[in-house]
C-alpha cells in the first residue's frame, strides 16, 4: 500500500505543472469548451489549446479525436486541392474554409448535446456539382451541391410522378452547353427526351419494335443520345441509338419540338445484334462511331454505326484447368478511352473483369477476378488508365487496367448493389448509386466518401451535369466584377462579415433557448444545478 501511495504521489507531482498550465489556459477557452468539459478526459485534453494559436486552429484541434487519428485530415481538407490542411495553412484558408468550419461546428455541438459520443458520417462536403439520378419509380431527381451551402449536396428538384410502370431502364445525357437534353427509356416502352435544365418533356415516342412484342418483355437496355450530330445540324433534331434485351438495335433521328405537336420520326435504321440470348449492356465509344453489345449468352460484339455492320466479336476464354467452361454472361462494359475504340473492358456475372483489345486478339488480353458477386457497373477514367468497378454486394474499387492491380476500395458503408458509376467530366469526383438508394460522391485520389444523399428509391442510373460548374463560376466571377471597382477591402470585409455573423447568430439563439429552458426549469422545479446557474449568469453578462 505504501508503495502505491508513493507512486500516486509521484504521479501527482509530475502532473502538477501540467495542471497549472491547463488551468491557466482554460481562462481563455471558449464557451464551447465549457461544454466540452463534459467529455471524457482524453478528449478534453485534445480540446484545450494554448491561447497563442488562432481561433480557427483551435477549432480544428477540437475536431481531432485521439481514437481516430485520420479524422483530422479527413474532416478538414483544402477545398481546392483536397489535401490535408496543416496548421500554418489554416490562417490563409480560413476564409475559404469557413463554411466547412461552420458545418463542423454544427456536428460538434450536436455531438455534445447527445452526450454519449456518437460517430457521425464524416463528409468533407462536395465541390459544386449537379447530378441527375433515375430511379425505379420513374422519378428523375436533381442533386446539387453548392459552395455556399457548405458543400452538402441535396435533392433540388424532382420530375415526374411515382409510377412503377415508368421505371427507368436506361438513360443518356447529351451534355452540351446550349440546350442540353436527356433521353430516358421507361419500362412501359416509351422513350422520353427531356430538357435537363427544367425537366420539360420534349418528345415521347413509343419504342417501335417488331409487331406483337410487348414492351414489358423487350425492355430497352441500351440508350445513347448522340452529341455531335446535333451540333452539326442546327435544326432541332437528335439521333438516338436504342437496344432492347432481345437484341433489336435501332438508330433513329427525332425532331425535337413541343410534345403537343406530332413528332416526326424519320430514318429508322434497325438491325439485330444477336440471334439468341439477352443483351444486358451496350456502350457507344467517345467518337460515337462504334458501339458494343454484350449480355447473357451474347459475346461482346462491336458494330460500326455508320455502316451498320458487325466488325468484331469476342471469343469465349478457354476452359480452365479443370475443364470447366464458364458460360458467357456480360453484365457491364465500357470503352477504355474516348479516342480509342479498340480497347474496352467488360465485367461478367462470374465476377470477372476482362480487358479486350480488338486489334490484338479475340480473346481477352487480360482478365482478373473482383470479389464474389457479379460486376454490375464499370466506369473509365477518360484520361488515364484507371477503371472503377462496382459489384452486386456494394463494393466499389478502382483498378489500374494496365496491370490489373487493385488500387484501392472505396469504403463508405455501401450496402446495396451498385448499378451505376459516373465520372465527373472535370472535377476529380465519381458518383455511385444503386439498390441501397443512396447517391454517393467519392474523391478519386483519396478514395474517400465526400457525401451520401438518401434518395428514397432504388436508383438505377446517375449522370453528371458538367455545365453546372461553369455556371457557378461565371456567376461568381460576374459578381466579383461588379464589386471590384468599389473597393477591394470592402469586399473582403463583406465576405468575412457575412460568414461570422451567421456563426455568431446561431450560438446566441441557442443561448436564448437555453435561457428559456432554464427559466422554465426554475419555474417548474425551483431546483437547479450549480452549473446551470453559472451559465445563466455568464449569459446575463452578455
Amino acid at each position: 500500500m505504501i508503495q502505491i501511495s508513493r507512486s500516486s504521489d509521484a504521479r501527482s507531482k509530475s502532473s502538477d505543472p501540467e495542471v497549472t498550465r491547463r488551468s491557466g489556459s482554460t481562462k481563455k477557452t471558449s464557451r464551447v469548451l465549457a461544454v466540452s468539459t463534459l467529455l471524457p478526459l482524453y478528449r478534453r485534453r485534445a480540446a484545450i489549446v494554448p491561447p497563442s494559436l488562432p481561433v480557427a486552429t483551435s477549432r480544428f484541434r477540437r475536431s481531432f479525436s485521439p481514437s481516430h487519428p485520420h479524422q483530422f485530415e479527413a474532416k478538414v481538407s483544402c477545398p481546392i486541392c483536397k489535401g490535408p490542411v496543416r496548421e500554418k495553412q489554416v490562417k490563409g484558408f480560413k476564409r475559404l474554409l469557413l463554411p466547412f468550419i461552420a458545418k463542423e461546428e454544427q456536428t460538434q455541438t450536436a455531438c455534445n448535446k447527445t452526450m454519449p459520443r456518437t460517430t457521425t458520417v464524416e463528409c468533407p462536403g462536395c465541390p459544386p456539382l449537379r447530378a441527375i439520378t433515375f430511379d425505379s419509380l420513374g422519378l428523375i431527381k436533381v442533386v446539387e451541391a453548392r459552395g455556399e451551402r457548405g458543400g452538402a449536396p441535396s435533392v433540388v428538384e424532382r420530375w415526374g410522378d411515382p409510377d412503377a410502370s415508368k421505371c427507368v431502364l436506361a438513360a443518356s445525357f447529351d451534355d452540351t452547353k446550349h440546350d442540353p437534353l436527356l433521353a430516358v427509356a421507361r419500362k412501359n416502352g416509351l422513350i422520353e427526351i427531356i430538357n435537363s435544365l427544367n425537366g420539360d418533356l420534349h418528345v415521347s415516342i413509343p419504342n417501335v419494335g417488331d409487331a406483337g412484342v410487348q414492351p414489358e418483355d423487350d425492355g430497352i437496355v441500351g440508350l445513347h443520345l448522340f452529341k455531335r450530330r446535333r451540333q452539326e445540324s442546327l435544326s432541332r433534331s437528335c439521333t438516338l441509338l436504342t437496344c432492347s434485351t432481345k437484341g433489336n438495335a435501332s438508330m433513329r433521328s427525332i425532331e425535337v419540338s413541343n410534345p403537343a405537336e406530332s413528332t416526326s420520326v424519320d430514318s429508322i435504321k434497325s438491325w439485330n445484334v444477336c440471334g439468341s440470348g439477352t443483351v444486358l449492356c451496350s456502350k457507344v465509344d467517345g467518337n460515337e462511331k462504334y458501339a458494343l453489345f454484350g449480355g447473357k449468352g451474347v459475346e461482346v460484339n462491336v458494330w460500326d454505326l455508320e455502316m451498320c455492320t458487325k466488325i468484331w466479336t469476342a471469343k469465349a476464354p478457354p476452359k480452365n484447368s479443370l475443364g470447366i467452361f464458364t458460360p458467357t454472361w456480360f453484365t457491364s462494359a465500357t470503352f477504355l478511352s474516348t479516342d480509342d475504340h479498340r480497347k474496352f473492358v467488360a465485367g461478367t456475372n462470374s465476377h470477372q473483369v476482362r480487358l479486350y483489345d480488338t486489334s490484338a486478339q479475340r480473346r481477352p488480353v487480360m482478365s482478373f477476378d473482383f470479389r464474389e458477386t457479379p460486376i454490375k457497373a464499370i466506369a473509365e477514367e477518360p484520361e488515364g488508365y484507371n477503371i472503377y468497378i462496382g459489384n452486386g454486394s456494394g463494393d466499389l474499387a478502382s483498378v489500374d487496367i494496365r496491370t490489373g492491380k487493385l488500387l484501392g476500395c472505396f469504403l463508405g458503408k455501401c450496402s446495396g448493389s451498385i448499378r451505376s458509376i459516373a465520372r465527373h467530366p472535370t472535377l476529380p469526383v465519381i458518383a455511385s448509386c444503386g439498390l441501397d438508394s443512396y447517391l454517393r460522391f467519392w474523391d478519386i485520389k483519396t478514395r474517400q466518401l465526400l457525401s451520401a444523399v438518401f434518395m428514397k428509391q432504388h436508383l438505377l442510373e446517375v449522370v453528371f451535369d458538367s455545365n453546372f460548374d461553369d455556371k457557378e463560376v461565371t456567376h461568381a466571377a460576374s459578381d466579383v466584377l461588379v464589386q471590384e471597382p468599389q473597393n477591394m477591402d470592402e469586399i473582403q470585409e463583406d465576405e468575412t462579415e457575412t460568414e461570422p455573423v451567421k456563426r455568431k447568430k446561431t450560438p446566441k439563439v441557442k443561448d436564448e433557448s437555453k435561457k428559456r429552458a432554464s427559466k422554465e426549469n426554475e419555474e417548474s422545479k425551483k431546483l437547479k444545478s450549480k452549473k446551470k446557474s453559472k451559465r445563466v449568469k455568464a449569459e446575463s453578462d452578455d
Partner: protein
Amino acid sequence: MGVKRKKSEAEELVEGGKSNDKNIESSYKKKREILPSMIKNKEKRSIVHAKMKQEKKLEKRKKLKARDANEKRALELGEEPPPRAIPRTIENTRELDETVCRPDDEELFAGNDADEFSSVLKQERTPKILMTTCRYNSTRGPAFIKELQAVIPNAHYFKRGTYDLKKIVDYANKKDFTSIIVVHTNRREPDALLMIGLPNGPTAHFKLSKLVLRKEIKNHGNPTGHKPELVLNNFTTRLGHRIGRLIQSLFPQDPEFRGRRVATFHNQRDFIFFRHHRYIFESKESKGSDSKVKKVKDAKGEKIAQERVIARLQECGPRFTLKLISLQHGTFDTKGGEFEWVHKPEMDTSRRRFFL
C-alpha cells in the same frame, strides 16, 4: 469585423474559464484517489472494489428513496410530481438515421404500392407458403417446422430431397406459392432462416438463434387453427419496412379475431424476436378503491363497476430470435445475386447504429 469577433470571442473565453476551473479541480481531486484498478494485489483489490460497489449501491438506494418520498409528498400536497428522468438507453440515443420512414412520405407509399408484396397485402392473392429444409435434417429441425406450420396458416411442408433451391423456386412459382421458407439446420439445431418472396420478390437471409420449442415452454398453450393476428414492432427504416412487409406477406391479411391468437415480430436493436401467444379477456371483480373511472360508471350501474376486464396471455408455439444477414434483390441466387442490403463489418463501428 475580424477584430470585433475576436473581442467577443475573448469575452466568451473568460466566462467559460470560470466554470472550467472548478471542473478541472474536482476532476483532479478525483484522480488522486486510489482506484481499485491501480492496486496490484488481487485480494486487496477485490476488497476495495467490493466496498466501492456496496457504497454505490447504498447511494443509489438512497437516491431512489428520496425521489419516491418527494413524489409522495408532492402528490399529498396536490402538486404535480417532478417528472421522472428518462434513463438513457442505446435505443433512445440511437444514431440519427435519415432512412427512417415518415408517415407523410408519399414516395414511400407509392413505393409500397409498386413493390413485390403489394398483391398479397392487398388480398389479391392469398398467401401460400412452401416450407422446406436444408438437405440433412433431423430432431429439432422437423419439430421446429411442425410448429412453424402451426403458426403460419396455409403452409405446406415439402421434403427437400436433393433438389436445388433454384429448382424449388421454379416449382413453387408454377404451383402459385407466394413465398418459400427454408429452415437451415446445423448440427441438428436450426440456425438460419431463408424467406423468399415469389415470383420475383426479395430473398431475406436471417440468422436464427435462441430457439425454444413449445414443449420446453412452461405452461404453454396449444394454438387453434384460426388465422392469427400479427404484430410487427419497431420496423422503422426503409429496410426495416421492407422486411416487415416481407414478414407480413407470409400471413393472411384477414385474421380471425375469434381465435385470439397473436404472432409477434418485435424488432429491438436489429434483432427480431418472435413470440406466439393466445390471449383471453377475463372479467374479474374489482376492489372498491380503484380509480375514478369506476366511480363514474357507478352512477350508471353497480354491476359493471364491480367487474374489471383484464387480458391474460398464454405463450404457445416456438420462441426464437432472428437477425438479418442479407436482403437479396430477386429470388435466391448465390452466384449472380444482387443485394439490396448486406451486412458488412465496416458498418459495425458504432453500437448505436441500427438498420431495421
